[in-house]
């Protein structure tokens, strides 16, 4: 399956293998602005190419918008607890950038990566919601999308609560609150610690990467301004020296363009992958929260079941006529408890698999990002060296006058 870390042009990825091998590949393309004023939004063409039997045909094209992707993510998060759901790009906070070319392109790329990661995941690719997302007509999609907003709106609050629980067990004890039930798994503790620390480190790295993009733009701008000023100075000086100045100014302006280009490359191929990494870690945190929930549920049910068992024994001793009822309740509870345990254990198992996959994936993603970064910097530096070097013979000619 294709990792699709950087699908630059959004062109559909053709399968590498003959149709006998199962494949599912998606591309998110053609962002188009629809609607007016405050209601305006971007829609994307989502092209699916597959030979999965569950799908309607070899190729399907639908129109989707950002909120549809959000719906898909939320559904997957609900259904596939324990799996690190691929992260979505953020909703843009700043209004004025919502429709800037750069932002739209970055978002399109991130959405493409999102869907393809789902398509590449052995479990997630089987999802019915995914099929719906990739095939349903727009009206159906809109209906589904608006249905879900009510139920899942509280998610952010939930999420925050979960995080608070995970992080504040000490304060709870201090405050005398009932201690929230926590796993006492040292390995898992280490993992949690790792995840939280990792987010901090990555956020910092991403911040600097973003600043570096800005620096490239600024240096480009200043080279352009410098070039213009030098040209004017050259015009004033005249003669050979003046000509030299003009050439310098022209080169400076050329380099300015190169710097702007590199800034864009840096943004797409280095800063964005880092941001994506941060988002991925945040997704893991969400899964950690789900695991904590599942653990708590399992514990609560186990407790309740024990109580019910004791009660049942009591009733049996006293030969109460409520024994039958109590037995029934107990059996139900037992089933629930076992279910809860199963759910929890599934999450644990899945997480263990996911973490391995995650680490490998990230090493791959980062490796590519670093490679692109280094290539870009080397290319830029070479351009700069070449441009300035080409001036030297001209300066030499100047000096002999």
């Amino acid at each position, binding site marked *: 399956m294709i990792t699709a870390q950087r699908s630059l042009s959004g062109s559909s990825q053709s399968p590498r293998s003959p149709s006998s091998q199962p494949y599912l590949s998606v591309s998110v393309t053609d962002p188009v602005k629809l609607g007016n004023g405050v209601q305006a939004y971007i829609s994307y063409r989502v092209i699916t190419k597959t030979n999965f039997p569950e799908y309607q045909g070899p190729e399907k094209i639908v129109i989707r918008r950002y909120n549809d992707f959000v719906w898909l993510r939320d559904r997957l998060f609900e259904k596939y607890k324990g799996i690190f759901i691929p992260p979505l790009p953020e909703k843009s906070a700043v209004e004025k950038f919502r429709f800037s070319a750069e932002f739209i392109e970055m978002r399109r790329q991130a959405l493409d990566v999102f869907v393809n990661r789902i398509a590449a995941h052995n479990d997630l690719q089987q999802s019915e919601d995914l099929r719906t997302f990739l095939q349903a007509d727009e009206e159906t999609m809109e209906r589904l999308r608006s249905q879900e907003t009510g139920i899942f709106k509280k998610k952010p609050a939930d999420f925050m609560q979960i995080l608070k629980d995970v992080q504040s067990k000490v304060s709870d004890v201090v405050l005398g609150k009932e201690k929230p039930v926590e796993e006492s798994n040292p390995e898992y503790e280490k993992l949690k610690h790792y995840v939280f620390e990792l987010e901090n480190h990555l956020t910092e790295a991403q911040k600097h990467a973003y600043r570096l993009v800005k620096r490239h733009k600024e240096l480009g701008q200043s080279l352009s301004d410098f070039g213009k000023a030098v040209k004017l100075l050259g015009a004033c000086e005249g003669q050979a020296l003046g000509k030299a100045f003009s050439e310098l100014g022209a080169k400076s302006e050329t380099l300015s363009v190169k710097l702007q280009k590199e800034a864009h490359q840096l943004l797409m191929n280095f800063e964005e992958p880092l941001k994506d990494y941060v988002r991925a870690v945040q997704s893991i945190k969400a899964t950690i929260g789900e695991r904590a929930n599942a653990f708590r549920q399992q514990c609560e049910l186990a407790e309740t079941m024990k109580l019910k068992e004791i009660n049942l024994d009591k009733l049996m001793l006293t030969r109460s006529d409520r024994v039958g009822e109590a037995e029934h309740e107990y059996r139900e509870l037992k089933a629930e408890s076992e279910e809860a345990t199963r759910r929890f254990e599934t999450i644990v198992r899945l997480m263990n698999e996911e973490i391995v996959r995650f680490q490998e994936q990230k090493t791959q993603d980062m490796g590519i990002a670093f490679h692109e970064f280094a290539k870009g910097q080397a290319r830029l530096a*070479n351009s700069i060296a070449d441009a300035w070097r080409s001036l030297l013979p001209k300066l030499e000619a100047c000096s002999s006058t």
Partner: protein
Amino acid sequence: MMGSENQGFEEAHLFASREEMENLVLDEPLSNHSSNNNNHQNNNSYSSYRSATSSLSDTTHHPLSPPILATPADSDPLLSPPLYRNPNASDNNSYIEPPSYADVIFSPFDENSVNEINGLESTSQNPESSLTLSRSPSSSSDYIKITVSNPKKEQETTNSIVPGGNAYYTYLITTRTNIPEFGGSEFSVRRRFKDVVTLSDRLAESYRGFFIPPRPDKNVVESQVMQKQEFVEQRRVALEKYLRRLAEHPVIRLSDELKVFLKVEGRLPLATSTDVASRMLDGAVKLPKQLFGESTAVVAPHEVVQPAKGGMDLLRLFKELKQSVANDWGGSKPPVVEEDKVFMEKKEWIHDLEQQLSNASQQAEALVKAQQDMGETMGELGLAFIKLTKFENEEGRFNSQKVRAADMKCLATAAVKASRFYRELNAQTVKHLDTLHEYLGLMLAVHSAFSDRSSALLTVQTLLSELSTLHSKAEKLEAASSKIFGGDKSRIRKIEELRESIRVTENAKNAAISEYERIKENNKFELERFDKERRTDLFNMLKGFVVNQVGYAEKISNVWAKVAEETSGYANDSS
């Protein structure tokens, strides 16, 4: 502007042979020698672009700055000393002819003088001189080398009531020269800033029409606001620059004023610039006498060679003001006008040049800042990844994490190296582009010289007017007295007096005209010198800037090419 030491005229030979290039690498690069710590600090104070320099000197807590990194660099494998600093390295010859500029590390312009400040004798050849055009091929063997050092706080020993007294700083000024007129080869004196002001004022009076380098500002506000240490250092640097520029000027270097300033120990034997009030007072005392004709109501010839306001001769001031108003608003043309069309054109051109210099200087400053920021952010990025590397190594459980940690380390090391290069590049860029700033400063001197000319012309015009007035007065009196037979004793006396005035004024006029002509000559001489030197200096600036950019761009490219290669495995996996 730049070093006056010349080893004779040498052709700017850009494509020097490899050995020549390697011989030019004189000093250990900044980062490898702890003894260069001071150099690094002092280099900072050279630049007039404070934003760049203040962060360059901000080496105390920035872990990336080379001199301080001595200890961590040893222990931290990530920051091992850069390997590229081998001038004999033959790798990366990206350009077959000439050799790669990456191998040439240019030491800063005034490296030698930096050493001198620290008391180190520098006998090394200035690398710039063999690559750059030198300016005065004729005076190739004589030199004046001035150093300003050792600021000391001293107390004013005047009879002040306040026990603390006024404190001021003195600076040790050391001169080394082989010019015979100085009568000595090495001498030192202590001077304070007030002395420098005096020197500057006296030079302005004696050398009208010359482009006299402007003296450092008094910086009254800054002296209150800045840290004393920083201010004193800033002033020391400025003084040194100023004195060196004076020493470079072919005429002023031989002036008595400068000689005396540099050589005579103790109190500076130059007339101090008396304060305005007392001069006004002098002028006011003279005025009534002049108005009532008790003394010669004319300008004495020897005074004529001074500008009017310098001597504070109020009457003369009034007359010249009247004349200038007549010139500007009066119907008739003044008797003598600036006729030199060439000069007028030149003046306009200078004005244009000044604007362009100012603009370019501003943009240069912005460029320097942008380069500085780039280096800083690159370094911070590197640091962030170093932290990540450590983190993944410490808490990693999987092999994939170890691999990632290694990749990050590779990137981080490169980023830190690149950051260092950017900062070094910038330190050099600052020095090169400083030329723009310096020529902008010189514009003041040019304006001054031109205004010397105009004021001298005004004096001539005024005297000519006065002469014609006196002549017509005399004619009238003679015509009137000739009608009276035997003459009128008082009238005859008056005519005699007038004739005397005419004679004196005639002399004054001649003196004024000579002065004006002299100043015109000085202007011409200076303009020619200015043209030549400016072209040379700007050319050197361009070349220095370009070579510098090429060299560091190559270095930076190499650093990243290595990383690209080491991560090339990932490239094969994607498309």
